[in-house]
């Protein structure tokens, strides 16, 4: 099985051999270079990996839109360091690239709540012209207010949030045009 990864803007190809892994032994080619791993899978996406005698706990967090099967963002914790990367199985990656090509190069921008919380203030109205970085809506979670700002100069197409409203992570709050 082949995976395409992107790390700090660079693309990497990872090929995992397909034969039986009952003994925990995996052969992985990273950009052509072969590695032999002894891997054991722990609860909660932690993998214990031995490679050339070195022991690593590789701890994966999905960091993006977890409901999207084509979201490939991963936070990987290894020995006190966090590595951000994207990784998708080859065919999924191709599917994703196709979808992105088919879509408009830039979809209608919108403001999503980055976490579950409560809308405290809505700072704009439908039809307002807003400028890059202008505060649009304030969402509160865990007693911290978080101001969400405009990603670019735009017009407010629709306000989908009301003060006091409880919102889920990734819920759309304001549509821009």
């Amino acid at each position: 099985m082949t995976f395409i990864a992107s790390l700090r803007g660079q693309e990497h190809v990872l090929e995992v051999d397909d034969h039986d892994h009952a003994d925990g032994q995996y052969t992985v080619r990273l950009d052509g270079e072969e590695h032999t791993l002894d891997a054991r899978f722990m609860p909660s996406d932690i993998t214990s990996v031995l490679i050339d005698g070195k022991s690593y706990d590789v701890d994966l967090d999905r960091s993006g839109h977890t409901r999207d099967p084509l979201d490939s963002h991963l936070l990987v914790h290894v020995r006190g360091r966090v590595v951000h990367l994207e990784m998708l199985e080859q065919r999924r990656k191709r599917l994703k690239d196709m979808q992105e090509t088919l879509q408009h190069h830039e979809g209608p921008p919108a403001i999503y709540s980055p976490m579950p919380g409560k809308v405290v203030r809505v700072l704009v109205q439908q039809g307002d012209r807003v400028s890059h970085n202008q505060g649009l809506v304030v969402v509160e979670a865990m007693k911290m207010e978080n101001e969400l700002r405009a990603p670019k100069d735009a017009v407010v197409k629709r306000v989908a949030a009301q003060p006091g409203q409880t919102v889920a992570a990734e819920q759309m709050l304001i549509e821009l045009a």
Partner: protein
Amino acid sequence: MPVRPIRKVLVANRGEIAVRVMRTCRDLGIAAVAVYSPSDRASLHVRYATEAYPLRGPSERAGYLHVEQIVAIARRSGADALHPGYGFLSENPALPRACQQQGVTFIGPCAEVMETMSSKTQARHTMQQAGVPVVPGLQHAAGSEQEALSCARKIGFPVMLKAALGGGGKGMRKVDDQAAFSSAWQATRGEAKLSFGDDTVYVEKFLDKPRHIEVQVFGDTHGRVRAFPERECSVQRRHQKVLEESPSPFVTDELRSRMATVACQAAAAVGYVGAGTIEFLVDANRNFYFMEMNTRLQVEHPITEMVTGLDLVKLQIDIAQGARLDQLLPAKPLQARGWAMEARVCAEDPAQGFLPSPGPIHHVRQPGGPFVRTDTAVYAGWEITPDYDPLIAKVIAWGADRASTLAHLDRALAEFTIKGCKTNTMFLRQVLHFQDYRGGDYDTGIVQRLLNQSPVWQGHEHRKMALLGAAVLNFERERQSQARVSPTETSADGHNAWRSWVTAS
């Protein structure tokens, strides 16, 4: 004043501090009564208590701020006493007042003292009268934005806006110039209202990169006051403490003794009873100014417990029953034995600007081994909701000296595994490894310096391992999803399917 023995305590709080207080109750054979808002039904403080009663209110948080309801539960459950923890109602004088009216012993100071001290403006005034040095600023609460602004202009920008009833770093904002004043004024009032139920705000001179050092005091009902070894709390982000240590590497014996004297003087001036903390700002020349007094247990009290061997919650309970400090504490001044540090583990994502990160917790591995303590209410199967403070655990370490304490804390943080939310653990370890922290010479600007210097937590090492490890895990994930369910289903219930496979393997 006649004092009933305490056999049952209502803990008017939640999370780690409620569990912390109940632990001492268990040690002392005292029954503990929990109160809980709807989403806290399965929280550890409810399970840990001997009794638990639901709170009602218009919002998830409101119940914990409802004085009458809580005191009524104390009465109904037959609690002799009430412990407020920190935050919520802990510094609201209405609580001790209601307790007194209902005949429930309040574990803390009386309403009058709390009133004086919990209003930052009144506290400043009282302290000045008692000869305690204070930071220049407005003597009273700002009646209007207009008045506040004019004071700010007088003492000169930058200034601090602070909620009069604030504390714990909440409800504070630095304002750099007149242009930024109005929005800061509104935001501070908003947060003050949200966090403390009161939007009174005052103005204070902003000291450039001071140290934030505090002194724990205890007063008894017999007029004695004692000071404890200081806590260094200068590691802050957005005015929130991140990492504390005791003693402070900056404090000399001479300064320590001066601060202890002034702290006792401050507490004695108001006839303080119970546990309290005098927070000082200390400048580079070792001048110190009274900033505020917290009239309750501090989040960071465990480091004092580690260096003194005393249980501060037990001391609170003993004093509430009328015990004398000279029977509870040794006669000679309390000295720190060794060193202690506390790291505040929060459900937030340092990689996204410390965005809150609630979520269902599905795996926990708590640190262990020598010289390490963990205070938390998190367990596998519990869910962190967006309704409350992001603080989910405190990891505390002790050592014979500062360097070994730092090593112990770093080791403990490396061991701590919480899956289901993002945490700031990596960031905390970065602070521990930051040269300014290791050297011990730092002020409240340390976190900003760290954040400016390097995109911390972003790893450069171990990239290859991250890629290889992610590849084999993704491989197994794909194989499982192909074998068992269609891709769409996998991604829908995704995580759980994957987990049960791992468990079953």
